[in-house]
């Protein structure tokens, strides 16, 4: 065969086209070996509405916290090194910007359940240098404890104090006989918080506090206009914590 410039350029062109196409063809042939659980529940944006007319005493909230902390192996530490996923506080601390001196006595005396707000615009995610905390497409702000380096930027970033740092070995403050073997503990030196029970949503269950609240907490898809959450939000007056922080919490409180 005569090798002239014209055939060389032709062959080079075909080879270049092949190089451009081949990797994509090869990549598409290997199917991803993973998929979402068949019985998982899905939402475009998970949100929670807490009815504080029903759920406003310390005992009731403590009961929910107990359930939450038990299934997530949250250590029980007293004092300023406490670790908490669900806890309670007074009106003034829960809604500091929405206080007024002549607030209804009854509302002022309620105790409010608090947890991670799973903000639509989460400052903790923005400041995390290792991306250990991240926002899932369904709105849940999750933690990857494998990547947390314990810098606590997220704790500084969170306007709600929803994050706890494990100052000591968490297992020292856990009843090792009563651990939930389905869920890991954490290690020393990581930040932890409520995860909206992602591990339960993945198997088609509702979050533990919702289940234990006997109807005082509604959980569902904020983007679905027909969801129970949206129905409650339409019918009842709700507020969110610290609106001026601009974090757009996904936890709403019926007052």
């Amino acid at each position, binding site marked *: 065969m005569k090798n002239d410039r014209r055939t060389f350029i032709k062959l080079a062109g075909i080879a270049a086209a092949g190089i451009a196409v081949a990797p994509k063809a090869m990549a598409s042939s290997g199917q991803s070996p993973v998929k979402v659980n068949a019985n998982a529940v899905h939402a475009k944006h998970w949100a929670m509405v807490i009815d504080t007319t029903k759920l406003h005493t310390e005992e009731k909230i403590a009961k929910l916290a107990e359930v939450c902390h038990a299934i997530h192996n949250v250590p029980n530490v007293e004092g300023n090194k406490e670790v908490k996923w669900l806890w309670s506080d007074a009106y003034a601390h829960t809604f500091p910007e929405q206080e007024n001196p002549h607030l209804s006595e009854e509302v002022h005396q309620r105790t409010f359940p608090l947890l991670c707000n799973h903000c639509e615009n989460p400052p903790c995610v923005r400041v995390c240098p290792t991306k250990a905390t991240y926002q899932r497409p369904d709105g849940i702000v999750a933690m*990857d404890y494998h990547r947390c380096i314990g810098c606590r930027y997220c704790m500084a970033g969170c306007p709600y104090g929803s994050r706890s740092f494990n100052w000591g070995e968490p297992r020292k403050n856990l009843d090792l006989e009563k651990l939930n073997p389905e869920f890991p503990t954490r290690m020393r030196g990581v930040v932890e918080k409520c995860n909206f029970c992602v591990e339960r949503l*993945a198997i088609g269950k509702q979050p533990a506090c919702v289940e234990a609240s006997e109807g005082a907490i509604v959980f569902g898809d904020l983007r679905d206009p027909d969801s129970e959450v949206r129905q409650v939000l339409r019918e009842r007056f709700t507020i969110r914590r610290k609106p001026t922080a601009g974090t757009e919490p996904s936890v709403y409180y019926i007052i």
Partner: protein
Amino acid sequence: MKMHYGFPIIAGLLIFIALLCAPFAMGTAVTKEYKQPELKLPAGEKECIESKEFMREKHMQLLNDWRDWALRDGKRTYTNHKGKEFTISLQNTCMKCHTNKAEFCDKCHDDAGVSPYCWDCHIQPEGLK
């Protein structure tokens, strides 16, 4: 040309080379003595998530992928090369078959001198004491 101090130099060189090679020679002897640890395999289950060879070589990569798939991507069902499905979970899938960490994980990890910190958080199947 005559080599000054020829004998001591050659002898010294030989001793030096022998010393240099000694660790390799003795190391081979130790390697021959070494036996692979005998693992306690699950009684009820014959097949793992992937083939024995795959698991032996790549379980660490697999666990790393599993972690990201489950946590980051929210995909918790794994389909193996044969098309069988498994729930992605170290504690609830792997350790339900390999019910003894000391008799399985630790045997090789101790020999290889690696100590992964999986169990700082994950609960070993026999529970914590």
